[in-house]
């Protein structure tokens, strides 16, 4: 596949992610912060997000698995996940966290367990999509092309 085709595929793929709500404008911010002096910025931030999130999801599973659930602790973890997903533009994860926090406040164990499943689901979805997006970018760069700027009609 030649570079132009790859670039078009990337642009289309990125657009779908925005339209389907996986990513929001904050992801565009991150892309704008990447340049020749920092060509791996997005990959680096996204990788930090993956590591951070997986740890938080583990902590959440453990916290909700206790006989006496400490909802304050659960809420603190969700708050962190909400923060980092918001900072990278992972909109659906962020929204799932917002719903999660509401149920933490109610100290509703069944609902919070469902929320955890929902957050995990959204997280793995966006992880998959971001990995695909970053792989497409990598392929373009490897073929000597440049990554086209994402233009959205926001």
């Amino acid at each position, binding site marked *: 596949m030649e570079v132009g085709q790859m670039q078009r595929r990337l642009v289309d793929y990125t657009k779908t992610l925005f339209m389907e709500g996986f990513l929001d404008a904050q992801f565009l911010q*991150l892309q*704008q*912060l990447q*340049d020749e002096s920092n060509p791996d*910025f997005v990959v680096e931030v996204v990788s930090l997000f993956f590591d951070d999130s997986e740890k938080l999801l583990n902590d959440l599973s453990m916290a909700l698995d206790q006989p006496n659930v400490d909802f304050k602790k659960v809420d603190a973890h969700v708050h962190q996940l909400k*923060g*980092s997903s918001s*900072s*990278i*533009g992972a909109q659906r994860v962020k929204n799932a966290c917002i719903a999660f926090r509401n149920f933490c406040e109610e100290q509703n164990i069944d609902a919070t367990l469902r929320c955890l499943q929902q957050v995990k689901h959204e997280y793995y979805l966006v992880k998959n999509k971001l990995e695909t997006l970053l792989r497409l970018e990598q392929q373009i760069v490897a073929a000597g092309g440049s990554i086209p700027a994402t233009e959205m009609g926001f």
Partner: protein
Amino acid sequence: MAVNGAVTWLRRAEEIDGYDLSASDSEEVHVLAVDDSLVDRKVIERLLKITSCKVTAVDSGRRALQFLGLDEEKEANGFDGLKVDLIITDYCMPGMTGYELLKKVKESSAFREIPVVIMSSENVIARIDRCLEEGAEDFIVKPVKLSDVKRIIDYMTTDFREGEERRRGINKRKLRD
């Protein structure tokens, strides 16, 4: 919070590409960024660097105080050469909150002049007011964008230069709204 008619020594640019990454003859603004989130620290650090600032990023209020040399339990560890021009801190942090850090800074005779900006994901008026009342310079709602950082550095560098001129004994009427 715009400053009318003031020219900053950091060249303003509309596009990020046009941003002059080397400050002119003045020193770079040194910002102490405080956030317990690794992701957020990485982002704020980049935002500040792209705005031509020197950045020290720490993960807690405690470490921020240590860096400044304000921590009672630890001796100032020789960082006095690195003057801090601005502190930008997250509000919600385990241990010491950004609000508590703000108070400690404003209570200190050595550091109360340093502007402190609070960042928070919660857009709560009462919280914003409390921080401003305690002396915070500004409040940014997360997620932090480049325009937020540019805005703060822009009007800060004007104040900074005016502050320097004041210290050199030049009287200048502050051009402020």
